[in-house]
């Protein structure tokens, strides 16, 4: 080989090698600085020093934290604004953000925790807090909450409390379920609007008059074709915006207070199921097959294909965007007058593997979010969630936040009888198993007794699988 040729080959080999390595490393550039510092073992002086190495400002040490959250476009820019306000108020803390749409955020989060590059603080869907807490991935915030936050000033701190009294997150926004109703459809059928006195039976009676088939007949008229329903009385699906509040207000439920034992096979649950199955078999309530015909489970009400729905506060956005004329009221009572509403507190959680210094800095952010009136106001104005600070939620910023729905007080009133969704470390799995069995009952493929029995066995198996190990 000529000398020139050799040199060229060497350069080419070096170039391709570099490109290959850079290609792998490139994807991590966002987290480059943070990963090198947060992957160090927690609590040692060495790691603290290496963590603050990047920027030692005059005098105090600057801590950099990685903040992760899921969002859509609108809330992403608002969140970044608020983070900017925070860093302006706390010059010794710098924040690197990591945001993504909901699905991608969680896909990435688990692998990041495995690699030790997860954010120091992240926004967790309320139903996932225990998933991470019971597996030791997030920090116990009990002491810090007791020291820095007055519990009575905020909604939802107790939603992140486990059976041992430990607190694992601080709410970022509250989602509670109420009854949405489409006023135009009610007016068209000349039916009076729902009231606070309604029971589930009252709801079904009214829903029958609001269920219309392709030929215009309602579910109460003879000749009604339940296989050709154009407009449903009530749309209803899965746990949160479906069976959970029905079961609870009938006096039933899924898990006991410890979250480790199934109480599914019970008489109250049977009565609740009879209410649901009757509604679905008559075509008044959407059954799982009906739901599959729509673009998504949540699209049924905004599209005007259902007169009522059980909905979280976040559904207000879609209904407003669709231009619906609607309002909200409390969810109906059970036969004994019991009330229940589903509540989810999406919360800030702190990475258990972060060093103490970073965790402290992360806590400053969490505190800032909850305590600062201005932050709470700005987030409330977005209209995505109920603010966690009671004084802001009870003010006009939230209550008069938009002209629709008018009865926003219903959301706050519902919080007095709201219950979390029996969240525990294996929530997603047992909900899946319950839905599998419930679906068979809803579609008439299995009797209610059998479905409840097998749901009980399946759910208990999931619980034992995780809890018997510990």
């Amino acid at each position, binding site marked *: 080989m000529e000398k020139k040729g050799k040199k060229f080959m060497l350069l080419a080999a070096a170039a391709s090698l570099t490109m290959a*390595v850079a290609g792998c490393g490139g994807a991590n550039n966002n987290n480059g600085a943070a990963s090198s510092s947060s992957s160090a073992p927690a609590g040692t002086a060495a790691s603290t020093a290496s963590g603050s190495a990047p920027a030692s400002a005059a005098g105090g040490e600057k801590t950099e934290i990685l903040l992760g959250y899921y969002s859509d476009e609108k809330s992403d820019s608002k969140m970044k604004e608020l983070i900017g306000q925070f860093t302006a108020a706390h010059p010794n803390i710098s924040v690197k953000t990591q945001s993504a749409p909901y699905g991608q955020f969680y896909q990435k989060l688990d692998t990041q925790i495995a690699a030790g590059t997860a954010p120091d603080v992240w926004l967790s869907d309320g139903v996932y807090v225990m998933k991470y807490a019971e597996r030791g*991935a997030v920090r116990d915030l009990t002491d810090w909450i007791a020291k820095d936050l007055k519990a009575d000033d905020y909604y939802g701190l107790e939603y992140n409390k486990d059976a041992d009294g430990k607190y694992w997150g601080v709410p970022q926004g509250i989602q509670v379920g109420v009854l949405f109703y489409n006023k135009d459809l009610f007016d068209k059928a000349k039916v009076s609007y729902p009231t606070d006195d309604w029971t589930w039976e009252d709801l079904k009676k009214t829903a029958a008059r609001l269920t219309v088939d392709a030929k215009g007949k309602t579910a109460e008229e003879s000749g009604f074709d339940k296989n050709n329903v154009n407009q449903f009385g009530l749309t209803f699906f899965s746990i949160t915006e479906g069976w959970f509040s029905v079961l609870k207000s009938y006096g039933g439920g899924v898990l006991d207070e410890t979250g480790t034992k199934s109480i599914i096979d019970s008489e109250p649950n049977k009565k609740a199921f009879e209410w649901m199955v009757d509604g679905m078999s008559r075509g008044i309530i959407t059954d799982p097959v009906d739901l*599959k015909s729509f673009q998504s489970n949540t699209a049924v009400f905004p599209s005007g294909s259902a007169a009522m729905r059980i909905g979280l506060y976040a559904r207000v956005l879609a209904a407003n965007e669709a231009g619906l004329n609607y309002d909200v009221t409390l969810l109906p009572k059970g036969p004994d007058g019991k009330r229940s509403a589903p509540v989810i507190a999406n919360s800030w959680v702190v990475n258990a593997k972060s060093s103490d210094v970073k965790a402290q800095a992360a806590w400053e952010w969490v505190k800032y979010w909850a305590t600062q009136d201005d932050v709470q106001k700005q987030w409330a104005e977005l209209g995505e969630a109920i603010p966690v600070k009671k004084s802001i939620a009870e003010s006009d910023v939230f209550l008069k936040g938009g002209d629709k729905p008018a009865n926003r007080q219903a959301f706050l009133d519902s919080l007095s009888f709201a219950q979390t969704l029996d969240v525990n470390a294996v929530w997603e799995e047992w909900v899946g198993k319950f839905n599998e069995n419930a679906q068979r009952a809803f579609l008439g493929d299995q009797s209610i007794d059998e479905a409840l029995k097998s749901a009980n066995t399946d759910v208990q198996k999931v619980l034992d699988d995780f809890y018997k190990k510990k």
Partner: protein
Amino acid sequence: MEQTIERTGRAENGVRPVPKRRRDSSESRWGLIMVSPYLIHFVVFVAGPLAASLYFGFSDYDMLNPPKWTGLDNFARMGSDPLFWKALRNTLLFTVLFVPLQTLLALLLAVALNQKLRGLKWFRMAHFIPVISSWTVILYVADAIFNPRFGAANALLTRLGLDAQRWLQDEKLAIPLLVVIAVWKGIGYIMVIYLAGLQSVPGDLYEAAEIDGAGAYRKFRSITLPMISPTTFLVVVMSTITTFQAFEQIYVLTGRGDMSQAGGPNNSTMVLMLDLYREGFTYLRMGYASAIAWVLFMILFALTMLQLRVQKKWVHYE
């Protein structure tokens, strides 16, 4: 080149074959340098993860905490996990329905389009469009036809006085329907592979057969089929492997982006890859998921070995 050098080395006794060694080691050094990017990629992205995955298969690993060795626990769990066996059965059913159907139809299509008629290239292109479409697009097409409430299929059935079907929501119809959609989507690609194979069949074989009085069917059976049997073998082996690992199509068509809905009504469309993904990423049982992945590999390995063994009986190489 090596041989030339060796002969030279042997011929000259007593003389150290210095040129041979130097050229050899310099060549092999250069060879190593050139291959090193690929080798590094292989170790980092293939061999390393494979070894890790094998280790996870024998551990309890929830991704949030380091893996804990548990020996054969995951495999024992698999043996008594009804969902795993259902997934295996569904996967086998899907594969057994899909592979022969697509292979046969693609072959017939290729034979039909292998003529020198004008405008046939538009037909070939039309068949290729579903191949390059994403499954999300296919979902909308399938929905237009098979949506239980708004789809054309049920509209037609009710017009004819027949019962509307639940289609993808029907436990018995779901997998056959998925097979039909998948065949329609992928047939263009296999057809193109067969077209290439058909073009390599020497024309004089057909001429000779015609002289002997062979008809179209005889020519197909005795010339075309054997001559393209290597292509058929390739298609069958590849289709089996990819179909066994089907994930995206099932996830999109039955789940529409929601993992908790995927797997169809009552797990009737739950296939192995879907089960694996859910166990590992949703339920955080990554150790168990890794064990399932290795069992899947073993099954495919055995199947491929079987197909290689059987090929002597029907594949005709020139």
